[in-house]
């Protein structure tokens, strides 16, 4: 197992390296640069000063030099400066990462909390009204795009009913570190986490239900029943654990979404996070932020898939890694 993990980590290095070259080339290939947007707000700048500024920011050095500078910085943990926010990228990302991870984990936990019981009920008692209700709910949430759903949830629970706050991640008047502070943070988390979770339950429920239906018909289940094992033990012990396989495979994957954030949720709920940072940085051509985020998420994906494989091998002896 250890050799396996080590070998995978060794493979990560060339992958990340190729990614870094690709992303760097891509960032430079996009039309416009970070100064294009700046100039829109201050059109009275003359060409000479513009050249000077570009030089100061290192934007007119030949590409390989810029790339080299960036890679060197990466190894020292220096992700460069965000031209738009004017603070170091590390500081910028660190500030928003906390929020994003919090929301991501909340969505993850909520979605499994909802999906697994529903999937089990649906799979175990197929064709009953409970199953039909769940399947129906599945279709509706699947057909609704996330941003529409998030807006609806916000309108109904935030504005109309007024049960939850409608924007931000925290109430500014709450004192840091007090109980009220944590409660406020949780309070602001409910609506976005809820919208995000509901929409992501679809696939899990579908697969779980399908797996259970398939497993139900397998011979070993018949054998267990013939041996007199109680129905609930058959389900909870035998069928359930076998059906979790595809879901376990996705678990490592989900980490990527936790770190990556959702630009829809963050924008609609005014919840500053990484997803939105990524999108606006692309639009504003803030290269250092874009490349840093891509590298981070690339690393997270690779780690996630590795985790996924480890979990899969632990859960399913047939694919055990020696």
């Amino acid at each position, binding site marked *: 197992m250890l050799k396996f993990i080590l070998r995978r980590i060794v*493979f990560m290095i060339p*992958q*990340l390296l*190729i*990614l870094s070259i*690709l*992303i760097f080339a*891509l960032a430079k*290939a*996009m*039309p416009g640069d970070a100064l294009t947007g700046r100039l829109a707000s201050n059109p009275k700048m003359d060409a000479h000063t513009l050249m000077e500024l570009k030089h100061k920011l290192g934007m007119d050095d030949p590409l390989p030099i810029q790339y080299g500078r960036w890679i060197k910085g990466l190894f020292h943990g220096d992700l460069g400066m965000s031209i738009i926010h004017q603070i170091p990228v590390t500081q910028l990302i660190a500030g928003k990462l906390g929020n994003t991870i919090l929301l991501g984990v909340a969505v993850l936990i909520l979605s499994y909390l909802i999906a697994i019981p529903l999937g089990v009920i649906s799979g175990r008692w197929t064709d009953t009204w409970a199953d039909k209700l769940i399947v129906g709910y599945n*279709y*509706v949430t*699947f*057909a*609704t*795009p*996330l*941003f*529409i759903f998030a*807006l609806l949830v916000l*309108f109904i629970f935030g504005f109309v009913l007024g049960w939850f706050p409608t924007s931000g991640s925290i109430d500014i008047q709450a004192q840091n570190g007090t109980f009220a502070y944590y409660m406020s943070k949780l309070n602001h988390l409910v609506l976005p986490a809820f919208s995000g979770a509901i929409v992501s339950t679809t*696939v899990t429920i*579908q*697969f779980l239900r*399908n797996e259970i*239906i*398939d497993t139900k*018909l397998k011979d070993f289940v018949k054998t267990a029943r013939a041996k007199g094992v109680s129905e609930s033990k058959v389900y909870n012990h035998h069928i359930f654990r076998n059906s979790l*396989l*595809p879901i376990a*495979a996705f678990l490592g994957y989900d980490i990527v979404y936790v770190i990556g954030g959702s*630009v*829809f949720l963050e924008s609609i709920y005014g919840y500053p996070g990484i997803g939105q940072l*990524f*999108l606006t940085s*692309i*639009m504003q051509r803030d290269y250092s932020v*874009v490349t840093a*985020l*891509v590298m981070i*998420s*690339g690393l997270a*994906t*690779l780690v996630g*898939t590795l985790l996924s494989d480890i979990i*899969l091998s632990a859960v*399913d002896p*047939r*694919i055990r890694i020696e």
Partner: protein
Amino acid sequence: MKVEIINPKQQKQKKEKKHGVFSILWREIVKDKLALASLMLLGLILIIVYGTSLLLNQDKIVKVDLLSIYSPPSAEHWLGTDYGGRDILGQLIIGARNSFTIGLCITLLTGCIGLCVGLCAGYFGGKVDNTIMRVIDFFLILPMLMLIIVFVSILPKYNVFSFILIMSAFLWTGKARLIRSKTLAERELDYVSASKTLGTPDWKIIFREVLPNLSSIIIVNLTLNLAGNIGIESGLTYLGFGLPESTPSLGTLVSYATNPDILQNKWWVWLPASLLILVMMLCINYIGNAFKRAADARQRLG
């Protein structure tokens, strides 16, 4: 002991249950009334959509008429107009055609690629599996959103087909991973070892023995994908990177609902598209269910 002489002629008259793939599928659908209804409804929708769109003039539909912005449904515009004064019904029809084409093509493309890659990786295992998985990993770490934005900005001709190609290039990886993990499990089973002992070539084992056993998850995945891909561009449109504006699609119609004014007061812009997506999804799902049962003999109804 009675010896029964069976009349050969009578034997022939016994109804022969055909075992061809399509007849199995067809029987399964017919037996399930819901699937049959879905098939007919979907067929009807597709015929109307594809047929009418041939007759409709796309240019006329997208012509901007500032005087009738946001008109509610009327005799002239059966489903009212949108922010450019353009007829919604026309956009709905052409949009449904575009969306369904996109959904179908992406599903088929990603399905084929994902299936082949996943099967090979899972079946051969070892070094082949490793290499393929690393390639897949690389695709996974590519920033999809950013690449889409770059392509949209750079490509001079950006239409439905380029969109399909771009999306397919990214979306096959999930399927490949799924198929691969299932194949890994399957190849340990006895029937595979048995076939190998018999000397059956690998490709035959993969496609004629392992593949059918994966059919249930493949079909579930395919139907989910097809249903999901129909609205796939709505998210991108919300961000501003969907199809070019003069190409109507269901996703863009639905994304208008993010404007609260339209959501509450001008329902005719987005509601028909949402309902159409929902209906098509449901139909595809019920038909898919029938296919799934057809694939697994133990679950067949007929």
